């Protein structure tokens, strides 16, 4: 079996190679990278010299697929990767499964698992494995460890016409800490009336030694926090020991990113907010009244334990 593995950015190629190596014995890579990274786990690598836009990638990947005639195409789910491979699959008229988190073989079938319904349910699809199929795997689900194959490199030199001109790239601001690594997370939602009020959440977070995350609108609509604080199906998933959702309604797409937390606390003024269904402990209160009291209570507790320990 032969698989073509694609990633626009080489650093995300490992996930795709992970799945590819479990379903095929010949792996052909297509990517672009400029650094000293040493490609491995591939038999052959088509390497672009410079960064290409999606439109150009589509023609190149399609052409390579026509030559290589792979059984499968695998990529790692990132917005650009999915766009490029979906266009290629459109031309090849083959299906693609997005955000695959598991794949197993069941005689002549694959059983493909992916989250759906905003991440609140799992979709298990049985499909004939002799068909030409494409998979966009979720990051960190199919890690591959050092298959020591060193690929033959084929440089992609051709100039391809592109119908889309890239005018500008603006890097997004980043938080210093990765929220996925935090043990405690305080999540803020639209219950906060303005950016300045978030200081209540930050004060609470500091006392708990927690990081601050948020719902999609707080980051994507209002820009109050960087995109890497945004929790949920279209961004980060976290598994902290404690998650405190404040002024968050509990939409399925948000829950999908936090449902694996150890303990969930919800603070919301609406007793019917769905978030309470997903919480271990719930507080029905106005956050503007409740947080100052909670902060004071925590400070008291910390002070008294300090006194007790004598420092």
């Amino acid at each position, binding site marked *: 079996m032969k698989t073509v593995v694609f990633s626009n950015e080489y650093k995300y190629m490992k996930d795709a190679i992970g799945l590819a190596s479990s379903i095929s014995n010949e792996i052909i890579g297509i990517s672009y990278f400029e650094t000293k990274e040493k490609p491995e786990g591939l038999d052959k690598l088509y390497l672009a010299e410079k960064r290409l836009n999606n439109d150009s990638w*589509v023609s190149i990947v399609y052409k390579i697929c026509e030559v290589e005639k792979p059984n499968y195409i695998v990529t790692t789910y*990132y917005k650009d990767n*999915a*766009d*490029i491979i*979906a*266009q290629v*699959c*459109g*031309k090849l008229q083959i*299906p*693609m*499964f*997005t955000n695959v988190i598991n794949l197993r073989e069941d005689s002549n079938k694959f059983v493909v698992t992916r989250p*759906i*319904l*905003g*991440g609140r*349910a799992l*979709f*298990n*699809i*049985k*499909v*004939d494995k002799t068909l030409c199929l494409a998979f966009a795997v979720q990051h960190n689900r199919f890690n591959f460890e050092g298959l020591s194959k060193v690929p033959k490199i084929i440089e992609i030199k051709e100039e391809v016409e592109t*119908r*889309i*001109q*890239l*005018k*500008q*790239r*603006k890097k*997004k601001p980043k938080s210093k800490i990765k929220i996925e690594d935090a043990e*405690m997370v305080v999540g803020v939602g639209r219950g906060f009336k303005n950016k300045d009020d978030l200081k209540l959440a930050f004060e609470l977070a500091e006392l*708990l030694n927690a990081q601050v995350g948020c719902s*999609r609108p707080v980051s*994507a609509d209002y820009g109050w926090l960087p995109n890497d604080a945004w929790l949920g199906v279209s961004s980060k998933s976290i598994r902290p*020991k*404690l998650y405190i959702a404040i002024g968050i309604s509990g*939409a399925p797409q948000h829950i999908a990113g936090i449902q694996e937390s150890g*303990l969930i*606390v919800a603070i919301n003024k609406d*007793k019917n907010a769905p978030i*309470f*269904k997903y*919480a*271990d*402990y*719930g*507080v029905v*209160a106005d956050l503007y*009244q*409740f947080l100052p*009291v*909670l902060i*004071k*209570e*925590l400070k008291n*507790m910390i002070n008294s334990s300090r006194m007790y320990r004598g420092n």
Partner: protein
Amino acid sequence: MNIAVFVKASLNLSMIYIDSDEKINISRTPIVISEYDKNAIEEGVRLKEKYGGKLVVFSALTWGPIDKKSQDFERMLRECLAMGADEAHALIDENLINISSYESSIALAKLVNKVGNFNLFITGEGSMDTSSYQFASRLASHLNLPVITFVRHLEIEEGKIIAERDLEDEIQVVECNMPCIVSVTGEINFPRTVSVKQILQAKSKPILRYNIEEQIPRIEVDFEIKQISIKRKNVIFEGSIEEVARMLVGALIKEGILK
């Protein structure tokens, strides 16, 4: 300027019907307009208001059984018309039930070609039920047009689309001649809400229903959808704010979170 907007009738995430074995019962779950498709319509309406032309809605019903879903489907199409679309073209066919964007993009591309010429095609970034993030890109291949995905801001200048793409690590500004396809994010605009009265008023606008005329490729799959359920304690603290704060701190200590 003629604009085509693609709208999916998605399973209603707040009314998912779950059978006793944790399986999702599709037949008993209602369908509604997919969340970000409202943004797609809204963007179409705004462009139409600015540049004139016709705004046409396309949709393929993909959840069945058809008789149980047709009322919701009809209501969704009326809602789009009430928001400002001029007409709706809908595929309703047994052969399209339980299909994915792989098949629906082919079926709808064929329908588009039959209905007319368009300068711009707008979809949502992803559907809220199956979120395959493919439809716009596949449609681009079938119509042989360029596509710009994840657009959070859009301008038109001299027949060109200038779009801001919202990606994981960066914002890109790209430019492309029309006709082209864009998929829009939930942040591009605030969709207007329409009243039941406005929906009824949209009754005079045409909805055209079609069967598929020629077979489209379709993969055979068996599938099941299972709820992810994690048991929670669901304790709600009651009392004065001070009492509740103390109870919460107490619980966090008991759980070993606070020391």
